[in-house]
C-alpha cells in the first residue's frame, strides 16, 4: 500500500512534535525513519497508526484520503504497528493473544485461529506454539508474535518502532530477513530507529527527522556522515574509551547464588575495583538484572556473599547500602526512579535528605537551578519530571546522585536515548570512574557494552561467564555468547568460574 503523508502538524502544548511533515512512501518498500530522541518519529508513527490524531494535515492510502481516529481504524485500513515494548498479554495463550484484537463473533473459533497461526508461523519459520503462554516467550519471540498477529489481521503496512532494542543477534537477523521477505511480497514497512547501522543494512530509503521537521531523505548506498549530519545538524565525535586508574576492591561477590521465579544463578564470583566499569551483557531476563538488584540490596541471595569495601553486606537493606555509597539506577525511569507529579526541585530535596523539618524553598530552588545548569537538563526547578524528555529524565537521575559514591549500579544507562544524550550520560559516568567510583551496568546494546566496559560478564539463562576483557572481546564473540553459543570453554554450569575473574590477573 502506498502511503502519502501531507503536511502533518502535531503539537503538545508549546512543543511542536511534527511541523509540516510531507512524505511519500511507495508500496513494497522499507523506509527507515531516523532521528534523535524528540525528533518527532514516534509522534508521526502514532498518528499514522491511530494512537494520536494530527492537529492538521492528511493521510492518503493508495491515493484515497484516510480518516484514522483509533488504532482499530488504522488496522481496518491495513496499518499495523509493532511497539517498542510489545503490547501483548503475558498471562494469555498465544492463540488468545492473537484473537483478542480481531473482529468476529462473540465466541471465536480458536481451533481455526490456531491452525492459521501455525501456518503463518511456518511460512516465516517462527517457532511459536499457539497453545503456549505469552509470558514464556523472549522479547524477540514476542515481536514475532506481534508480527504474526498484525499479518493475521490483514496489515498491509507494518510500522516497527525500535524493534532491535533488547533482542539477540540471531533474533535480529531473523527479524531483518522477515522484514525483507514481507517487503518483497508487497508489504510497506516503516522502520523507526536511531541505530544507523540497522537502517543502513535494511532499508531501501531513509527519512531523517529533526526537531519535528523532515531534515532530508537518503537512498542507498547510505553515507553515515550525511545521515548523522541530517540527524543532528552537525558531526559528532566518537566517544573515546578512557581508562581510569584502578584502586582498591570496592565490590566482591563470592559464590553468590540467586533465585527468582524463572531462573537461578549459581556461584557467581566477581571482584570490582574502584574506577572500574563492568558491563553485564545478555538477553533480557538472563539473570543480569537479578544480580544487579542483589548488589543493591534489593534482592536476597540464597547463599554466598556480597562485600562492599571489604565489609560483608549480604543481607543488608538497600537504604543501608545507599548510606555506604551505593547508587542504583533502574531502567524504568518514570516507573521506578522518579516520582511523576513531583518537580525537579522536590526530587533534589528528597534525594539529598537534608536536615530540618521545614523545606527551605529558596535554597531548594537555588540547588535545583545549579544542578539543572551543570547537568544541562532542559527543564525548570518547578518542571514536573514526567514533562521532561527521556534524555532529560536520565540526566535528572544522574544529577540526583550523591558526589561521594563508591559504586554505581545502572540498568540500561542509555536505553531510548539519542547519540548526544548517550555520550553525555557516559561522560558523566566516566567522570565518576576517574574519581574512583566503580560502575556495574546492564545493557542490551553490544556496542555500548564493548565501548564502555573494562570487563564484561555475559549472562545466559542464569549462567554467568567469568569476567572477560572487553578489549579482546569482539562483537561477534559477545553476540554468540549472548545467544548461548561457545559456553563449553567455561566448564560445566554451576561450577565456579576460573581465577581469570580476579581483577589482578585481568589487569596485570
Amino acid at each position: 500500500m502506498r502511503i502519502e503523508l501531507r503536511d502533518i502538524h502535531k503539537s503538545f502544548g508549546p512543543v511542536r512534535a511534527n511541523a509540516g511533515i510531507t512524505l511519500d512512501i511507495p508500496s513494497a518498500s522499507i523506509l527507515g525513519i531516523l532521528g534523535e530522541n524528540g525528533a518527532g518519529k514516534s509522534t508521526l508513527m502514532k498518528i499514522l497508526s491511530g494512537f494520536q490524531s494530527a492537529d492538521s494535515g492528511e493521510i492518503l492510502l493508495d491515493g484515497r484520503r484516510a480518516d484514522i481516529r483509533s488504532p482499530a481504524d488504522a488496522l481496518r485500513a491495513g496499518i499495523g504497528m509493532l511497539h517498542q515494548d510489545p503490547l501483548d498479554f503475558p498471562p494469555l495463550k498465544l492463540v488468545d493473544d492473537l484473537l483478542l484484537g480481531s473482529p468476529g463473533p462473540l465466541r471465536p473459533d480458536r481451533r481455526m485461529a490456531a491452525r492459521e497461526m501455525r501456518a503463518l508461523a511456518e511460512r516465516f519459520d517462527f517457532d511459536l506454539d499457539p497453545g503456549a503462554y505469552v509470558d514464556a516467550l523472549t522479547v524477540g519471540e514476542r515481536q514475532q508474535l506481534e508480527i504474526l498477529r498484525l499479518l493475521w489481521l490483514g496489515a498491509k503496512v507494518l510500522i516497527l518502532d525500535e524493534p532491535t532494542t533488547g533482542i539477540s543477534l540471531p533474533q535480529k537477523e531473523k527479524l531483518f530477513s522477515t522484514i525483507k521477505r514481507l517487503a518483497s511480497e508487497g508489504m510497506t514497512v516503516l522502520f523507526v530507529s536511531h541505530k544507523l547501522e540497522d537502517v543502513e543494512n535494511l532499508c531501501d530509503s531513509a527519512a531523517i527527522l529533526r526537531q519535528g521537521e523532515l531534515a532530508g531523505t537518503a537512498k542507498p548506498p547510505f553515507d553515515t556522515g550525511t545521515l548523522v549530519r541530517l540527524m543532528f545538524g552537525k558531526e559528532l565525535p566518537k566517544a573515546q574509551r578512557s581508562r581510569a586508574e584502578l584502586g582498591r576492591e570496592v565490590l566482591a561477590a563470592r559464590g553468590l547464588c540467586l533465585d527468582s521465579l524463572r531462573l537461578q544463578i549459581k556461584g557467581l564470583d566477581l571482584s570490582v575495583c574502584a574506577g572500574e566499569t563492568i558491563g553485564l551483557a545478555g538477553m533480557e531476563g538472563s539473570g543480569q538484572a537479578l544480580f544487579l538488584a542483589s548488589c543493591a540490596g534489593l534482592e536476597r541471595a540464597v547463599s554466598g556473599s556480597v562485600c562492599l569495601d571489604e565489609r560483608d553486606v549480604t543481607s543488608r537493606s538497600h537504604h543501608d547500602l545507599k548510606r555506604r555509597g551505593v547508587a542504583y539506577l533502574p531502567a524504568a525511569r518514570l516507573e521506578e526512579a522518579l516520582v511523576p507529579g513531583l518537580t525537579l526541585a522536590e526530587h533534589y530535596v528528597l534525594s539529598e535528605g537534608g536536615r530540618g523539618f521545614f523545606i527551605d524553598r529558596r535554597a531548594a530552588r537555588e540547588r535545583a537551578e545549579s544542578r539543572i545548569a551543570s547537568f544541562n537538563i532542559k527543564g525548570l526547578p518547578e518542571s514536573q519530571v514526567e514533562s521532561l524528555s527521556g534524555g532529560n529524565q536520565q540526566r535528572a537521575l544522574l544529577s540526583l546522585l550523591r558526589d561521594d559514591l563508591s559504586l554505581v549500579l545502572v540498568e540500561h544507562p542509555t536505553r531510548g536515548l539519542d547519540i548526544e544524550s548517550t555520550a553525555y550520560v557516559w561522560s558523566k559516568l566516566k567522570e565518576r570512574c576517574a574519581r574512583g567510583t566503580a560502575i556495574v551496568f546492564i545493557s542490551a546494546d553490544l556496542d555500548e557494552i564493548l565501548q564502555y566496559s573494562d570487563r564484561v560478564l555475559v549472562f545466559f539463562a542464569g549462567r554467568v561467564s567469568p569476567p572477560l576483557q572487553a578489549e579482546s572481546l569482539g562483537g561477534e564473540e559477545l553476540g554468540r555468547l549472548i545467544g548461548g553459543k561457545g559456553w563449553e570453554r567455561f566448564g560445566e554450569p554451576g561450577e565456579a568460574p576460573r581465577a581469570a575473574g580476579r581483577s589482578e590477573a585481568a589487569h596485570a
Partner: protein
Amino acid sequence: MRSDRTAKALFQAAAVVAALGITTLVLAATGAPPFAAYANIAKGAAGNWTVASDVVVAWVPLLLVTSGLLVTFTVGLWNIGIEGQITIGAVFATWALRSCQGAEVSPALAIALAFAAGMAGGALWAMLVGALKTFGGVNEIFGGLGLNYVATAINIWLIFGPWKRPGVASMSGTLPFDQKLWLPTLNPQSRLAPVAALLAIVSIAAIFVLLRGTRFGLKLKATGKNPRAAYLLGVPTWQYMMASFAICGALAGAAGAVQVTAVYHRLIPSISSGYGYLGLMVAMLVNYSAAMAAPIALFFAALNVGSIQLPIVLKLDSALSGVIQGTIVLFVILGEGVRSTLAARKKGRTS
C-alpha cells in the same frame, strides 16, 4: 491558567446544581415537596443560634477526621478503617474518664487525659490496619473494614457488659459522666465547646503546613505517587505509611474523644455517627488538598444538621442529606473527569 480556574469553578457549580437536580427528582418521585424540603434544611441549619451552633458541633469531628484522611490519602492509602478509629478513640476516652471519675483528679487534667487516651487508641487501631498491610499483606481497605466491625463489637460489648448502666443495660449508652468532666461549652444549653473547635482548626492548619512545606509531607507525597521510586530515593516507605496511619488514627481518636467529652457525655453505640465515611467524602470532594477542607466540611455538617428537621416537619427521612452529599461528590468528581477530558481534547485541537 485563569481560564482553567474559571472553567473548574464553573464545572463545580454545575456539579452542585446537577446534584440538587437529581435530589429534586428523587423527592418529586416520592411525592414530597422538594423546595419545602430545601427550605427546611436551610432553616434547620441556620434558622437560629441553637441550630447554627449545632452545625459547628458537627463540623468539629468531621474536620478532625478529614484532616487525618488528607494524610493517609497523600501517602496513597484508603483509610476506610477511620470509623473504627473514631469508635476506639471514644472507647479509650471513656475509659480514661471512668478511671478519673473515682480518683482525685482535677477535671481539666481528666479531660486532657481523655483526649490523650482517645488519640492513642485511635492511633493504635489505625496502626493495626497498617501492620496488617505491611506485615500481613492485607489491603488497608479490607483490614480497615474488618476492624470497623470489631470496633463496633467492642463498643457494644462494653456498653452492655462491663460498663453497663446500674440496673439494666440500654442502647442509650453508659451512664453519663459527672458534669465536672464535661468539656466546657459556650453556655449550659449549648453543646458547642470552644476548645474542641480550636482543636479542629489547629489540626487542619497543622496538616496544611505539614503537607505543603515540610520534608515529612514531601516524603509522604513521594510515597503516595510512586512508592518504588520513593524507596529508591531513600524514603523509608513503610515507616511513612505507618506514621500516616498513626496521625490519621490519632485525629480520628480525637474526634471520638470530642463526641464523648463534649457532645454525648457518655459512650453510645453509634458514637462515630458516620463522620468517618462523611470525612472520606469531604476529602474526595476537596481533591485531597487541605485548603478547602474546612468550608466544605462546614457545608456537609450544615446539611446533616439541617436535615434533622425533615422528619418532624415534612415526615421525610433525614437521610436526604446523605443523598445530597453523595450526589454532590459523584457529580463533582464526574465533572472533573469530563473537564479534564475536554481540556485535553481542546488543547490537542488548538495548539
